[in-house]
């Protein structure tokens, strides 16, 4: 008869203690009760004070004001909007404007940032110094300073529309903004769009097929001529068959301003310029650090395998650098989106400017409006960090495998 090992005691009380109070046990639970009491007291104070203050100011709490007429105009709208629309519509207009300036800013910031990073890594001494000077100057000046500089100094110094600077006779820069030709859809537009969509889908499918062939059978398929044909050749043929997809309406100087074309307001130009150059300085440092973080042995190993320099860079160095670059890069994109709220300083109609600014001063619904505005930014950053943690999880999985 063998002696069985005794089971360990159940220790239910201990486990509960651990879950409720952490390592400190009952002390921790007591601390939590005290903490909860303090939080509850603060919350009670806030609610009761807010209620009393709102009553004194005759403001009705709640989101009912969103259905009221806004009654003011916005000078850049992506969706149709007039003064008689509701505050909810104002919220949407502002949100879209924020997103537009962020996306455009992100694109430019990435391009400029990579160029500056390449300059700083360049073997050319002069170019490396220029990149360094750019980064040091831009990073050490406040972003609001730069926005105001572009808006109040540079753009204000531009000539008026009558003496505007012409770019090849199709676009005009003046202190009223940038005027560019506006595309107008023609008869062949639908066919063009359909063919373009088909081309993109076909190219992606081709690439997937080629990769599968490479990884499963070791067969190299050259796809770039087909992709070129699908993306450019096919739409060109359609254009010849079905006619031009769209024509351009050129801006004309009439009186004191331009008629026709689309106008990009100076606030947008100043904000995009400042945000993209500012963020580009940070992106340049991130990219540089990422590329320098790849050990030089990787490059040597690649060439000892017989890969060319370009192939080594593309297949060995850049993927490893990207792993270091992407998380802080996303952080910078998020920063740019948050910094776009500085639009309020120059009157670009973004979310903070039209909603937390004009709407707030018209309705006085401070709590609801600021909570909504903060909520939007919080949501954007929470989604981004969720995506980033999925990315980090995938990276760590691929490294572990």
């Amino acid at each position, binding site marked *: 008869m063998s002696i069985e090992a005794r089971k360990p005691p159940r220790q239910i009380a201990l486990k509960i203690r651990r*879950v*409720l*109070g*952490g*390592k*400190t046990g009952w002390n921790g639970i007591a*601390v*939590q009760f005290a*903490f*909860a009491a303090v*939080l509850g*007291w603060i919350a*009670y*104070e*806030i609610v*009761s*004070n*807010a209620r*009393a*203050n*709102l009553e004194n100011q005759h403001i009705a709490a709640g989101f009912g004001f969103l259905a009221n007429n806004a009654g003011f105009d916005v000078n850049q709208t992506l969706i149709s909007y007039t003064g008689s629309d509701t505050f909810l519509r104002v919220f949407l207009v502002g949100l879209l404007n924020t997103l537009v300036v962020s996306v455009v800013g992100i694109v430019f910031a990435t391009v400029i940032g990579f160029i500056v990073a390449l300059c700083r890594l*360049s*073997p*050319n*001494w*002069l*170019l490396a110094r*220029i990149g360094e000077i750019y980064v*040091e100057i831009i*990073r*050490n*000046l*406040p*972003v*609001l*300073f730069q926005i*105001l*500089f572009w808006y*109040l*100094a540079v753009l*204000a*110094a531009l000539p008026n529309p009558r003496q505007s600077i012409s770019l090849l006779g199709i676009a005009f820069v003046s202190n009223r903004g940038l005027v560019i030709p506006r595309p107008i859809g023609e008869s062949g537009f639908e066919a063009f769009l359909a063919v373009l969509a088909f081309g993109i889908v076909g190219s992606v499918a081709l690439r997937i097929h080629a990769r599968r062939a490479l990884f499963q059978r070791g067969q190299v398929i050259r796809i770039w001529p087909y992709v070129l044909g699908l993306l450019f050749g096919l739409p060109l043929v359609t254009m010849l068959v079905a006619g031009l997809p769209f024509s351009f309406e050129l801006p004309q100087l009439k009186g004191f301003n331009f008629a026709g074309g689309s106008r990009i307001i100076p606030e947008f130009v100043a904000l995009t310029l400042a945000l993209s150059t500012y963020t580009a300085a940070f992106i340049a440092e991130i990219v540089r650090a990422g590329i320098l973080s790849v050990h030089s042995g990787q490059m040597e190993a690649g060439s000892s395998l017989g890969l060319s320099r370009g192939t080594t860079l593309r297949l060995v160095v850049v993927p490893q650098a990207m792993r270091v670059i992407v998380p802080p890069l996303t952080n910078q994109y998020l920063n740019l989106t*948050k*910094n776009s*709220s*500085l639009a*309020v*300083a120059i009157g670009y109609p973004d979310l*903070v400017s039209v909603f*937390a600014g004009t709407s*707030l001063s018209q309705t006085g619904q*401070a*709590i609801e409006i*600021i909570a909504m*505005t*903060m909520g939007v*930014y*919080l949501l954007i*950053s*929470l989604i981004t960090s969720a995506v980033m943690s999925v990315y980090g999880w995938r990276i760590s999985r691929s490294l572990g495998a």
Partner: protein
Amino acid sequence: MSDITSSSFVRQDLLDERPAPVKTTGFVGLVRTRLFNSPTNILLTIVGALLLWFTIIPSVKFLMVDAVWTGKDRTACLAENAGFAVGACWPYIQAKLPQLIYGFYPEAERWRVDLTLVLSVVLLVPLLIPRLPSKALNAGLFFFAFPVVAFFLLHGGGIKGFGLSWTADLLQLFDDSIIGAGKALLDLGKASSAAPLLWVVGNVIVLVGTAIYWLIFPLTWLRDQLQGTGQSVWTDFTITAAVVSVIAFVLGGGLRTGGRALTSSIVTFVAIAIVIKLMGLDHGGLPIVQTNLWGGLLVTLVVSVTGIVTSLPIGIALALGRRSTIPLIRIFSIAFIEFWRGVPLITVLFFATYMLPLFLPGNFTVDGLVRALIGISLFTGAYQAENVRGGLAAIPRGQGEAAAALGLSWWKTTSLIVLPQALRHVIPNLVNSFISLFKDTSLVSIVALFDLLGSLRASFSDPKWSSPSTAFTGFAFAGIIYFIFCFGMSRYSLFVEHRLNAHRRN
């Protein structure tokens, strides 16, 4: 010997000297190897030189060569009067300099600002030089004593009581709120379906409040007696000093080891007494200068120094909370940090300006500058928490375990073993946060405070000085100031980083 020299394969005369190898050091070498070593590089060098030519030359021309240096008003800076294309308009900066530095601070009182600035430099510079001794005392003076002195210097005003009165006021406020909450619950209970429950809870809270009232009654009674006498500040001060010193003596170990704590407590109170006497705080202090008169660089520095001083304790507390094993505290810290890090600073400032007054009692108005300071402190505190957390994570577990093995409590382990090492690790990150805080102070100009950038913007609208180059001159001046501060801080952070990593260099 002779047959070797006569051999046909031995050279008869010396070879010519070979040319020296191509120089790869010095300026010539730099030009050869890094600028003109290949066609692409030559092209890039030319592009770079052109870029510099079109940026540096016009800037220098604008700031120096074409600049106007003297003048009374805008006419001096107009091209038709000067006779050439005018660059920077420096008389405009000269005229606006007081506004850019002090704002509308009364001219007779500006020595107070200067004195504060001198004090801060005197305290800060020794703190930044690693070789100088007594860092703890220095840091204590800068982070605790200086803000209080600076407040009374810049804002003015005196005090009516001291520790005892303040404690009594605070406790009474707290007690009133508890009794108010209980009464509100009782009122709610009259109309609600859950009446008995609310009635019980409400009465319990009111009972607790009344108990606290009688508990603190001696304190409030003493305060009322003190306020009646003429010398309220000094009596209150003596009582507070005596009580705190006795407590310090007992907690410090009584007769055995308490002498040290007692001495430092007495020295501190004597110092406080000297400050009170010097600044005349007991009878009104300096004339009050309302914060809406403050402006320019003064506001920028006040906001950034206050942000730096207040955000660090908030950050440390949040970082420790986030690493705590107690669930509620950890969850609260995470939510707090992520919330403030997820929103832009400008919405935080809007929150502080428009929402905060609604959350406070109606008779309690908060100054506009203080509101912005609260917002900035919370915002920066959340960022500092993440920096500090990085430092805490870098400390090996063995440090905490060794401290526990020596019998130190959690508080002692944290404050004596873990935190000092963690903070030293993250000094460069903390300084980087301070740089971004300094840059972010410019945002207060959006909520109607006139910091350096706000004053600059306000000065643009002065018709007396409006000329085509006014805006560029103003931005050049403000830009140089911002750059000096930020660049100085970033160099300092590099220096500290270099020092900290000295053991890793080879």
